[in-house]
């Protein structure tokens, strides 16, 4: 070994240095071509399919992440829209309830007023009817009272009373009664 290294050392500066290590053109060129071929073979048959698969997977993961982001965004939008719809529905419902309350209140008031008006009209009619009846009865009573006074006067005095007498006697009798 020492001799080999010594030989290599002494021959380092000489053309035979590389020959000590067996470096020669045919072997070197063969190894160079060999290595380049091996590189391309490994690139094509060893690395290409694996790298292609890794790239495909990377793309799918990236796409998946994009989709996830989109879905999350859509979910957030959807939640926002749902919340907005719920808020709007709540507001509408509140407005409708208020309107219904107001409407019910005014309707009740209106019906009450109508009922009062109707009752008042009935009362007025009844009063008018009562007045008319009383008037009729009073007239009949006056008429009957006049006839009785006239008949009584005719019987007591024994004379036949004409229309003027009857009228006068009736008026006097009525005025004394009403007086």
């Amino acid at each position, binding site marked *: *070994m*020492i*001799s*080999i*290294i010594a030989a*290599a050392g002494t021959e380092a500066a000489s053309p035979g240095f*590389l*020959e*000590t*290590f*067996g*470096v*020669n053109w*045919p*072997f*070197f060129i*063969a*190894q*160079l071509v*060999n*290595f*380049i071929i*091996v*590189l391309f*073979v*490994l*690139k094509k*048959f*060893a*690395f290409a*399919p*694996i*790298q292609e*698969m*890794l790239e*495909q*997977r990377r793309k*799918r993961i990236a796409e998946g992440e994009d989709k996830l982001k989109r879905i999350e965004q859509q979910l957030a939008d959807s939640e926002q829209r749902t919340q907005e719809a719920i808020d709007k529905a709540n507001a509408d419902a509140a407005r409708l309830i208020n309107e219904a309350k107001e409407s019910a209140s005014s309707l009740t008031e209106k019906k009450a007023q109508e009922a009062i008006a109707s009752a008042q009209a009935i009362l007025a009619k009844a009063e008018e009817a009562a007045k008319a009846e009383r008037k009729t009865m009073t007239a009949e009573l006056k008429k009957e009272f006049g006839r009785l006074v006239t008949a009584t006067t005719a019987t007591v005095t024994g004379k036949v009373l004409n229309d003027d007498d009857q009228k006068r006697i009736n008026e006097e009798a009525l005025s004394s009664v009403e007086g």
Partner: protein
Amino acid sequence: MAQLFSVRIFISVLLLLLPGAAFAGGGHQLPLYPESPFTEGSGLTWISNSMIMVWLAALIIVAFCRVATKKMALIPSGLQNLAEWLVEGLYDFFGNILGEHLVKRTFWFFGATFLLILVVNYLGLIPGVGTMGTTDAHGHFKGLLRGGNADLNMTAAMSITFFLLWLYWSFTEIGVKNFFAHIFAPQGTFTGFMKVGMIVMFFLVGILEVVSIFIRPVALSFRLFGNIYGGEQTLEGLMALVPKYFAFLPALPFYFMELLVGLVQALVFTLLCAVFLKLMCSHSEEH
């Protein structure tokens, strides 16, 4: 970890100091150079025993990936899971160094080189690799197989391929002007005499940088070759220290060590390549 490496270095030094002891028991010494297992006149002498191991490693990796990706599913299981974990792990590892843009462009090189070095290193540890072979009439032993990275031709081929790709990637990423500006242009704002001084200084530093750039492939080649060759030599030397029926015993702990070395060296080679590339291409980001 550091202690284990220290022990390995100690054993290596011991074997160096006792050259006769390790191989006296009939064991053979792993030569520094690869050899062709084919005979002269066959027309195949350009194929070295280490090259066969590289082919074997490439075949194993491709076969594994083909089986793992035969029925690809979006939800992985079994071998697909393992293959994806491996590729994704490497991609993220180099991505952390190079950045998203560069790793997309260069991963095929770093991933393939890492796996190739790793599998080649581990294949070199299979018993028989480096020890199976023929001995000719002159008593010269010729190994049928040899660890792929225990061949300087292979490590140099990888380093020089990276060096050329490094130039191409650097030029296309930051442009030729920025490439040379990164090496030679003064960093910072100076005026007057300081400016002149800095231009001269950075030019000289640039020359050193150019030298270091050209040394990189050499360092990468020799680092990987030295570690793997040294490991194999250590294992063979240790096995030769004891009678052949117990040869596995002294080498056994070092097999675990070599498993670690195989991984670390694959990592170091590709990591350094990635750092060299990032250092040059980060220029445009800084300015």
